[in-house]
């Protein structure tokens, strides 16, 4: 660019910017502008996802590998000691990232597929289907979710597949309500009417006309629902009716090692052991909440009341 004042022309300067920002560059600019909490959140999420994907490479020992010494103290061999039957806590924490987060993620996706599709269908249809689905959801939401999950688990038994399906179905009621509410505003738009008149089928209208316009609130909701599902599954596993041993899972790890906390006066490190998986759960939830907060702030355009 020519900065010489004598030959300077505004048109020249404007014309000289030829570079178009790629999605990646825009993302990078957005990220550098993000508040500290959001950066922290993104960092934590990346670390956890990395742990989950590369668990067998990072973990020093196997998921269910048993060593002769149960409740071993923290040492260089076993970073965080061993649990009640002698399994390495550090390795189980890493595998736990894969199991706990993986199950929660699968559940959230399933909940969004069910709730999202039914919510969209109800918003477009607006007749008996809408009435039926909305009233069903009202009744389902009248029962506390954890209690309902406990009832269903007692009937079907605690397997991972049952757990995913039960929590997903119960959680899809919330997704249904949100999807229906936000898409009701979009369904009345002219372009949707045009698409219907053009003879597009309901699936096309849902995917190509409405979905792109309701995506931001749904993505934010995905983060929040993930937190909620993640905490529910952790709570169920902690209660002993969720993910079953020997699968490493943070919720049940807290329960298995809880008695160590009584020895805090003698060995503070050992007493911290049951808190590690609980802290991992809390950390990931906080991280996702921070990122969702930032995303909502960006997409809704609402600034703090000042």
């Amino acid at each position, binding site marked *: 660019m020519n900065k010489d004042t004598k030959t300077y022309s505004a048109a020249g300067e404007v014309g000289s910017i030829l570079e178009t920002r790629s999605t990646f560059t825009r993302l990078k600019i957005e990220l550098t502008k993000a508040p500290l909490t959001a950066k922290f959140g993104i960092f934590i999420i990346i670390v956890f996802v990395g742990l989950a994907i590369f668990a067998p490479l990072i973990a020093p020992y196997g998921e269910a590998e048993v060593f002769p010494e149960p409740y071993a103290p923290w040492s260089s061999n076993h970073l965080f000691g061993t649990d009640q039957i002698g399994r390495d806590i550090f390795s189980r924490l890493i595998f736990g990232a894969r199991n706990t987060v993986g199950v929660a993620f699968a559940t959230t996706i399933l909940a969004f597929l069910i709730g999202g599709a039914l919510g969209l269908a109800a918003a477009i249809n607006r007749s008996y289907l809408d009435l039926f689905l909305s009233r069903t959801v009202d009744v389902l939401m*009248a*029962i*506390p979710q954890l*209690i309902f999950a406990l*009832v269903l688990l007692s009937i079907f038994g605690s397997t991972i597949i049952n757990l995913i399906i039960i929590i997903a179905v119960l959680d899809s009621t919330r997704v249904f309500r949100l999807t229906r509410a936000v898409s009701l505003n979009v369904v009345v738009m002219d372009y949707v009417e045009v698409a219907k008149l053009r003879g597009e089928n309901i699936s096309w209208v849902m995917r190509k006309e409405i979905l792109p316009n309701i995506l931001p609130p749904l993505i934010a909701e995905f983060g929040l629902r993930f937190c909620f599902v993640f905490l529910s599954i952790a709570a169920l596993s902690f*209660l002993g009716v969720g993910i079953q041993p020997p699968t490493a899972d943070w919720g049940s790890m807290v*329960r298995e090692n809880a008695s160590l906390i009584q020895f805090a006066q003698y060995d503070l490190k050992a007493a911290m052991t049951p808190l590690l998986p609980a802290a991992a759960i809390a950390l990931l939830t906080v991280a996702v*909440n921070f990122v969702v907060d930032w995303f909502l702030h960006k997409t809704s355009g609402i600034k703090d009341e000042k």
Partner: protein
Amino acid sequence: MHPVVKTVLERLGLGLATLFFVSIIIFSAIEMLPGDFGQAILGQAALPETVAAFRQELGLDKPAYIRYFDWALGAIQGDLGTSFSGRNASGADRSAEVVDKIAPRLWNTLFLASMAALIAVPLSLILGILTALYRNSFFDRSVNTATLTTISFPEFFVAYILILFFASLNQIFPSLANVDPDTNFGERIYRTALPAFTLTLVIVAHMMRMTRAAIINLLASPYIQMAKLSGASQTEIILKHALPNAWAPIATVIAFNLAYLVVGVVVVEVVFVYPGVGQLMVDAVRTRDIPVVQGCALIFAVTYILLNLIADIIGIVTNPRLLHPK
């Protein structure tokens, strides 16, 4: 008819309908069991006659709707059926009535929940109103960050941190909340202190944020601006203008969180080995003792629905627009 009475009656009707459908869902739990569950409960060695007698006792030879009415009428009169546990293959029956299992524990759970509510409700209302009044101040921002963090914590994490500091490192409170009917009132409060604090921490965050949002929402409405412009003092605005309209959202917030308490109590009872309904339910789920699960679920669901119903009704009877119709 006065619009308030009409709306209240409508809500009551809707609440009853919800209760009816919820009871059907909980009842059908037993319908969804696989066909051979009699065998599963009584053991592989059970004689066909024992299994048949067991099925007859459950009334599986009658149509489902008759069994539903039997069950619902029994539940209304306080009879929730007989537990599955304590039965064995030879047909000997040492099982207990579900009501006898639940009744003593229900009092414990109510005690714990009301203790948590008594601390949490005033605390969060005061914090909520203060943060709304001094919003965007340092106080507001620090309280907000703290609550956002505690919301993300699982109940058992909060519980174990409290145990670590107040029961293990410094032995101020007991880490196990074992109470029995003979425990006197003062001792009972001392032993349930940690579980009650845990529940308080978990619900204060929610309740405070919702109160803050409700008040800020209200303070932004035009009639408050009008009152401010007409020279009313801050206290006058809050007490005379904002509060009458705030009862409905505040009642909703409180009921929502007390309902949340109902669920939170399950995990907390298990952590502190507190003999309450929540722990009974979790144990019953593990042993798949369906009548006990049904009984506990019914109690939790009814409490939840009633709390929400009460909040709705408070919202209706304090609504100035309905009280003074044009």
